[in-house]
């Protein structure tokens, strides 16, 4: 190796909006990546001190231990209602929820649809990992047809257990939704695109353009019984056909937005 005297350049460091708490997420879990993206975006927007996060019930229940700003912790599924309450009384604050797919698309479907239909000026970071992570890998509304989980041990049988819910598509039908996209966290290119989407979703809130949600396909190697690398491939090969990445709702005002 040739040593040069070129000064070292810092290319990667922990965003200050993330504290120093050691992660409790499993190895290869992309919850941590999503946290980092949110922290980077809020920092780049100089919004860290002006933000109130709403954590949900799931593996990310302790999200507030990582983020270094004000947080509240909602009941299972109710984060969008809680965020509504906060945003309505503190309209100048940036308010976001961070929710899993069991939380948002099963028990909390009423609250998320209500918030989106009212065009609540909140940002939702939605982690779709095709199962209930925290409780040990049960079937979620996002579980793929045929996917084995601890509560669909022979694989999700759509005749008995229904079909996966495509949240981004569903919420995109609502007038109050201004920005609804699906991204993935399975490779660096998609992570960069995810970050841009999260940035847009927060800008939409800042500019008061309506409800914004970014659905993120996320790994759960532990409950998928895969290695972290296999889990990344599983997103691409198995999840993406059912949950295609894309922009599902870009209101005209959002289309004009320059991020």
């Amino acid at each position, binding site marked *: 190796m040739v040593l040069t005297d070129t000064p070292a350049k810092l290319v990667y460091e922990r965003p200050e909006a993330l504290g120093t708490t050691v992660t409790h997420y499993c190895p290869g879990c992309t919850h941590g990546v999503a946290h980092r993206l949110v922290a980077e975006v809020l920092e780049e927007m100089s919004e860290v001190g002006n933000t109130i996060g709403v954590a949900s019930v799931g593996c990310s229940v302790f999200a507030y231990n990582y983020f270094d700003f004000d947080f*509240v912790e909602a*009941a299972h599924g*109710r984060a969008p209602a*809680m965020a*509504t309450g906060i945003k*309505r*009384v503190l309209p100048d604050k*940036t308010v976001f929820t961070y929710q899993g797919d069991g939380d948002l698309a099963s028990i909390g479907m009423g*609250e998320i649809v209500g918030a989106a239909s009212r065009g609540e000026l909140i940002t939702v970071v939605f982690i779709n990992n095709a199962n209930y992570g925290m409780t040990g890998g049960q079937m979620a509304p996002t579980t793929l047809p045929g996917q084995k989980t601890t509560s669909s041990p022979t694989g999700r049988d759509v005749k008995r257990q229904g079909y996966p819910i495509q949240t981004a598509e569903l919420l995109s039908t609502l007038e109050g939704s201004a920005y609804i996209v699906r991204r993935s966290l399975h490779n660096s290119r998609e992570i960069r695109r995810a970050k841009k989407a999260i940035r847009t979703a927060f800008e939409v809130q800042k500019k008061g353009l309506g409800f914004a949600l970014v659905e993120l396909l996320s790994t759960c190697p532990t409950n998928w019984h895969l290695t972290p690398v296999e889990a990344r491939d599983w997103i691409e090969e198995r999840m993406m056909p059912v949950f295609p990445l894309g922009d599902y709702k870009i209101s005209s005002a959002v289309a004009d937005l320059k991020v």
Partner: protein
Amino acid sequence: MAKELIKGNTAVAEAALRAGLEAYFGYPITPQTELLEHLSARMPELGRPFVQAESELGAINMVYGAACTGKRVMTSSSSPGVSLMMEGLSYIAGTEIPAVLVDVVRGGPGLGNIAPAQGDYNQIVHGGGHGDYHMIVLAPASVQEAVDMTGLAFDLAEKYRYIVTILLDGSIGQMMEPAELPPMQPLKTDVPDWAVRGTNGGEKRVLTSINLDPPAQEVMNLRLMKRWQEIEQNEVRYKEYFLDDAEYVVVGFGTAGRIALSAVRAAREKGIKVGLLRPITVAPFPKDILEELTGKVKAFLVVEMNSGMMLEDVRLVVRGRKPVEFFGRMGGVVPFPDEILTEINQLVEGLLTTEGHPRDRWLARLEKTIG
């Protein structure tokens, strides 16, 4: 301010607004809806948030969120809706933040009916939501008292970081009575230390009810219980009528207490030495005065619009030392003063006993009337 003829629900809504209500979140349900409707017009007029939520689950969790910012916020509902709120109430209690709930109770269980009832007593006073917590419960018996208690509810909630429930029934909610509304208060400007607001460069604040470490959770439980003891010490409220020389005491809250007062007055006219104890705080329960009366009087009659829920709280204080009888109507049926007068007469003339359970005797009597 002059008195005006005003409906209970509307009066409570306006009183809350004047007490500095900063945001309201609710869902329509009879017999509470006028409260929501009044605020749907008044709150926007004043530039304050009003949200008709997607459900009572939504409403209570909006209250939860907004209350985390330290603002004065409330919701209101009636029995089936309040059942849906139990999850949120437990979380609010577990986060130790103030909030106000108005429950305009109707006949049940189930969808029941929209007539006045007191069948939510156990749910509101003895829990409902999961875990170890209490709520302060105020039980007014008139529109004026409901108005006066609305401001008090916010003050108590903030003082103790507790939930305060105003327990109305359909008749107080729906009834029009002359009442004097309080003057308009300015909105609170102070932000409590614990409230989230964005760090603005300072220390972060986290409001949560999760506590995975049982000993740490127990410390929190202990704190809540100690505060409850303080509330029991300081905040008991009740009204007494003709108790000075009473040999018999009727105990009733809210509308049942008010109807019982008519019966007590009629009995007094006939020379019966009977008085009325009307708890205003059903939680904390007025134990001391009941204890004092237990030493003085011959017997008690508990009157409720349910199957005898507060009755058990009375029996816990009296502890078999004096006879306790019960009279109630259920399912949205409101008792007549005559019926209660008959019960008072029976108490005076009848064979008093401390044996058995008063509910069984009451049911046997009631079956003859409604069977």
